């Protein structure tokens, strides 16, 4: 048994060595013909935010003359790992991806590292002790988004508040961080309490179904905090069906600021939206060029973001791109 393991291990080591060698020459070859190839493994098209993100990356790549290989993982980690592996085999110049969940990436990222292919994380981070596995992380600060949502509630809450939380996909970075940031800020107010918290999987129907159950099991909900607009929109449907007025009887705070969310905000059905900017295509292409040219890039690049109240939404809506 031990012998077998040893043989297997040495085979893996040999393969890795071979991969290193090839990776070096592959990179040089790509540099020769001048065009940069990026392999991008997207999470999926689970929300309006995500499709805006995809579009931004595709358009920015075209504008920058970068060849983009795009794959859609349909929210499943195994699909994403498969896509990254195929990019390693295709010897792309840069791999970029938004990890579906935070953990479980070390093996596949190590494969990319051994093939000398730099990795850029976009939008979501990975939870790994080894930061040498990726060059940089371009994306929003989700904890800060959670804090912004919490701050608005703390400032605008008169009297005790019962909050229900619609979490994103269990284990996803935005779900974990938006929860953390929000809880951190409302901890200063003992009268604001999260009475129920469940995952709505970042989808509209998930948000609606969970909110329906909350409305039955938890009386007198004051505030809904949804980790994205789509779940908030689902919650609005559920609140309306229960004969209450969203935005008045039950206040709604969401994160993202996609078009449908902003429209609901302008219509007074949502009270506050923290923006999470999906238009990071141009920044990604800049970073990719720098990484390929061998320039130093910062480990963390934060996208610019703001927040919207109902009044601000009305003003901003005509110019929204997504």
């Amino acid at each position, binding site marked *: 048994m031990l012998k077998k393991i040893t043989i297997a291990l040495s085979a893996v080591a040999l393969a890795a060595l071979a991969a290193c060698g090839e990776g070096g020459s592959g990179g040089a070859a790509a540099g020769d013909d001048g065009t940069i190839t990026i392999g991008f493994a997207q999470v*999926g*098209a*689970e*929300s*309006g935010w995500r*499709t805006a993100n*995809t579009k931004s990356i595709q358009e920015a790549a075209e504008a920058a003359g970068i060849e983009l290989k795009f794959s859609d993982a*349909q*929210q499943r980690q195994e699909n994403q790992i498969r896509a990254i592996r195929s990019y390693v085999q295709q010897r792309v110049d840069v791999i970029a991806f938004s990890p579906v969940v935070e953990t479980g990436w070390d093996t596949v990222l190590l494969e990319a590292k051994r093939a000398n292919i730099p990795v850029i994380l976009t939008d979501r981070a990975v939870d790994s002790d080894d930061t040498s596995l990726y060059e940089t992380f371009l994306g929003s600060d989700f904890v800060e988004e959670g804090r912004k949502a919490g701050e608005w509630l703390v400032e605008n809450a008169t009297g005790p508040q019962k909050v229900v939380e619609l*979490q994103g996909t*269990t*284990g996803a970075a935005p779900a974990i961080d938006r929860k953390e940031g929000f809880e951190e800020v409302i901890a200063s107010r003992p009268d604001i309490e999260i009475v*129920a*918290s*469940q*995952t709505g*999987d970042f*989808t*509209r*129907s*998930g948000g*609606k*179904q*969970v909110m*329906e*159950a*909350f409305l*039955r*099991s938890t*009386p007198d909900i004051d505030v809904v905090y949804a980790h994205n607009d*789509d779940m908030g*929109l*689902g919650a609005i*449907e559920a609140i309306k*069906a*229960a*004969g209450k007025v969203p935005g008045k009887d039950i206040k709604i705070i969401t994160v993202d600021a996609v078009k*449908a969310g902003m429209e609901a905000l302008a219509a007074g059905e949502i009270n506050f939206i923290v923006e999470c900017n999906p238009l990071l295509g141009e920044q990604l292409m800049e970073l990719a060029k720098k990484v390929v040219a061998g320039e130093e890039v910062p480990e963390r690049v934060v996208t610019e973001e703001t927040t919207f109240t109902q009044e601000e939404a009305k003003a901003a809506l005509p110019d929204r791109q997504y």
Partner: protein
Amino acid sequence: MSNRRLLWPALALVALLLLNLVFTPSFFALRLQDGHLFGSLVDILRNGAPTLLIALGMTLVIATRGIDLSVGAVAAIAGAVACTHIADGGGPVTAMALALVLCAVLGLWNGFLVSVVGIQPIIATLVLMTAGRGIAMLLTEGQIVTIDDDVYRQVGAGFLVLPIAILISLAVLGGVALATRRTALGMLVESVGVNPEASRLAGVRARTIIWTVYVFVALCAGVAGLMISSNVSAADANNAGLWIELDAILAVVIGGTSLAGGRYSLTGTLLGAVIIQTLTTTVYTIGVPPEVTLVFKAVVVIIVCLLQAPRVAPALRRAPAPPKAEQEVEEVAVR
């Protein structure tokens, strides 16, 4: 179909409901609001309607020793077709009709692969399961198509005292029960499942029957897809009906129908579908943390399946029962 076999799933359902009652004393409360019933039980029925509908079609497919994995994708396509048509200015009725016609075509395709070409059902329908979502994404161009149409909203979110969605599903249940139990159709379906070749030699048109059940399940999936998208007034090609095929198969299995084909129980399927939705609602109402939701669901499913297992069930009844060799209880992962 022995009623005894349905005893354990029924008890499991009652136990789940009682568990809810402990955590939420008002769980069984029903009130009339705007002329319709309103409460947790109504929610369970309404949200469970799509699963029930698909599970009904799936029961007949499984009875012919087949399986249809493509129902989730077909549901997504139905929603996508209807919503894009309405978004382009079409009427809701034509939109729904268009969607259902397309679903029937997809069912014909599945039936063709299984009954004419002779591809194994699990592979034949896997084709459409994978490709179907792609088709739905093409239709919606990868976006979530949001619409605002009061007629269309009725299918999934409307009420006639009871939710319209569950009324549709129950009507289909009644229709299927009449068509298969009051005529010879049910027996023919079962005979095809037990032995297609023998049935054919005995003069049963096995091919036509198999073809019919695949078209029927696709139509069920189509209506379920309309319910799902109508419920949130949006078509989400990526998530609509995601994994619903597994829920439907699970509902059929919990209901005591063997995946090996042959005898089936429509009442069992109804029970199975209600258990699955009650389970989901229970997770939300009693506040099971999202991290352990899947484990909680798996434990309940495995208990229900164990209680029905041919070797466990007789021991529990403390009475020797004849071994039922044709029964295989399969655990299908619940989402």
